[in-house]
């Protein structure tokens, strides 16, 4: 009888501790989604098929493929693979991973504001029937403004190389020389 009481008491105590811990250390949201979202490049381009980077992060957490993010490139896929504990996959297609920004040919712009509405990061300024232009430093190169333009005056141009973003380019492989 006493054994039964002791076991019951212990069960009660541990139950209380667990219940308290569940309330005290409650996790607000899925931390995995936060981590995945931090890896994604935040271009909000929707090329993954989801409306923005966070929805895609949620989808990955729920088991979607990790190779749907062309702007992130192989590096992002690798990081996602590490985090999710799966094998890295090659990117879906031969996507362009070169960094690009939108450029509006301003004399052809008719001021329709369609690109402004499409831009996920408000990087295009302009008003109806006035020429628009892209704030290059804010543009994530997501391509979303190109499609809505009725006069096709938006080009995606590679980011211009300056001495600031220039990198040493030398042949990474060292030729093997046979020593005689």
């Amino acid at each position, binding site marked *: 009888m006493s054994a039964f009481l002791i076991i019951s008491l212990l069960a009660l105590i541990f139950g209380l501790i667990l219940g308290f811990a569940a309330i005290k250390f409650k996790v607000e949201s899925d931390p995995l989604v936060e981590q995945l979202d931090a890896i994604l490049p935040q271009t909000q381009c929707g090329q993954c098929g989801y409306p923005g980077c966070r929805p895609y992060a949620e989808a990955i957490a729920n088991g979607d493929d990790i190779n749907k993010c062309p702007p992130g490139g192989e590096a992002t896929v690798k990081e996602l693979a590490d985090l999710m504990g799966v094998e890295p996959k090659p990117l879906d297609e031969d996507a362009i991973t070169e960094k690009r920004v939108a450029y509006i040919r301003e004399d052809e712009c008719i001021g329709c504001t369609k690109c402004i509405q499409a831009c996920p990061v408000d990087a295009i300024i302009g008003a109806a029937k006035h020429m628009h232009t892209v704030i290059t430093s804010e543009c994530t190169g997501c391509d979303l403004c190109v499609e809505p333009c009725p006069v096709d005056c938006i080009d995606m141009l590679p980011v211009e190389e300056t001495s600031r973003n220039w990198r040493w380019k*030398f042949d990474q492989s060292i030729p093997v020389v046979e020593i005689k």
Partner: protein
Amino acid sequence: MLSIIEKIKKGRLHQFPGGVHPEGRKAISVGSEIISPDLPECLYIPVKQHSGTAGKVMVNIGDYVLKGQPLTESTNTNDLPVHAPTSGHIQAIDNHVGAHPSGLPEPTIALRPDGKEQWIDRTPIDDLSNVSPTKLIRLISEAGISGLGGAGFPTHRKLSSGKAVEFLIINGVECEPYITADDTMMRLYPEQVIRGIQILQYILQPQHTIVAIEDNKPDALSVFQAATKNSDILTVSIPTKYPAGGEKQLIQVLTGREVPSGGLSMDAGVTMFNVGTCYAIEQAIDHGKPLTERIVTITGEGVNHPQNVWALLGTPVYHLINHAEPSKKRSNQMVMGGPMMGFALKSEKTPVVKITNCILVPGEGELNTGEDARECIRCSACADACPAQLLPQQLYWHAKAQEWQKTQDYHLFDCIECGACAYVCPSEIPLVQYYRNAKQEIRSQEEEKLQAEHAKQRFEARNQRLEREKEARLEKQRLASEKRKQAMEANGSDAKDKIAAALARVKAKQQDKPASLEENSASNTSRVADAIARAKAKKLEQQTKTVAEQKDANESSQDPNKARVAAAIARAKAKKQAQAVSSDELSTDNASAIVSTIPSVSPEDEKKARVAAAIAKAKAKKQAQAASSDELSTDNASAIVSTTPSVSPEDEKKARVAAAIAKAKAKKQAQAASSDALSSDAAQSRAKTAPSRSPEDEKKARVAAAIAKAKAKKQAQAASSDESSTDNASAIVSTTSSVSSEDEKKARVAAAIAKAKAKKQGKNADNKPTQGNTQEGSE
């Protein structure tokens, strides 16, 4: 226990780990005097010559500037201005190859000297004690002084850190082979350098001031020891070992302290300046001269007369090399800086900047080009040589594999890029380049992370904004509807009565309708006629409202040419009707009758014809709709057709309005009658006529083109992937382009519209290629 300064005085110095002893080769450029080369033809002054951000350009092309005049102004503490090195005219403000390993163009001010060397008004400071250190720091900043040792850190920022300075160290070590610029400075201008040190002492109030000179410069050492004998400045000879001149290494040699990883020299209680910087400070404070020139060593076997020169900032490198006479042994290499830490120049036009202490022109085979690199044999000679106690071969390993995180685990950012590891490497691997590459990759990745974070914030801010706007819109709608409700309630029974009356009317009508079908033909026709008349009146009313918008169309219809257009449109409409009421054979006959009559009428009285056609169309349509399956009404319609022409000539306006209505209807019908071969034919014919007319009357042509385009568009949408319509679009594009020279704006607008349409069509065609094929067949 002796204090640090006592130890230094006794010559008990410390050692830094590693280090190498490369061949000095300094003797070849040491001379007893400095010769300034002639003024170059043009000076290329990069807007940014220090580590920081560029100032704002203050001059314009063609301006005449005096020597020492600021060309840019600083807008924040990271900025430093650049000054005109001589008087002359601003030739260009453009991109010019920069003094950077990339050789990429950078914003540069090109100055053409006039040879007068006319100075701007200068305001030297006579007595330091009257001036606050803050003002001196500002003057130093305005003189554009950055560290002349190599890193180019803005001097005023070092001075205004606010931390207590234990040691002020003046760096005259100059440990890198070949370079003798600081040596020359110390030998020839000791008073000025010491005066500069005194100004720094006044600003920083250090506990101790030390001038450190490597013992391979005995002349400079003896000059300085003599000059500082009776002052509070201590001149110290330090043993020659590369890279003793590195800031962290020199601090370690003198004080035994190590600058913490990721820290600054100030964390070790030390502030360090190059001797050249001291000279520049003296010039700025005592003479009011901004930094516009510096001593540059031109050396190497590639020149006949290696020497030190006073070079104006912005002097192209080739000018200096020509001054020192290129030798026969000269290779195609040029290095800015020394052989250990300098970088190869991509262009001879690269200008001298504030950090340029040496131009090395090596002869053939003088320098290792790094082309004979072999695999790492893990000999660890680099680890022994590294003054920062890193593991260069591990760093190399991971940098090569692009494992950036691993390189950081091995403290990549503590690497000072001195090149000692590459110097000792038996495999001649260009190790430093790997580290530089890795550092740049990591920095750019961090920058990308920041950008991503920024983009995310903007994206979220936008979503919130959209949400807010949506809520505001809904709220507005809600308020408006409430207002309406209130207004209605306020009017009370009156409004309700009205609604009741309206309902009653509607009911009466509904009852009428079924009955009318069984009624005799006479009453029926009269009702139909009434209805048509009412509808017409309504349309006219609506039309008068939109007349302004349709102006173009109206203008066009006033012309005889337009009549033809209208006729064409009318025909098209008739066809459409035929489709709409296709089940009713009689009405089709009726429509064709209208079509046949119009052409015959038009030559006689164009206006009337147009009007008639339009009205006829409108009516035919109405009838077809209202009295479908009612034979009597068709008879009636033909009657109307015969009567209306007599009415129409009386009112031009109405006619125009009618034409407009007709057009509008045609559009609608075209939409309704989708995938109909007839309609596309009509559109084709219209499109064909449009180009032929354009030379006669531009305005009309444009209008016509616009109409045609509009229709083509509709068709394209309806009969998607119709190839003929694509042709139409291109035809339109060609006609509009001919007009464009006369009226640019309109032309551009038209072109834009045409493009837009072409795009849509293209899209449709892409989407439904199979449909396109079948359509082609049917035509």
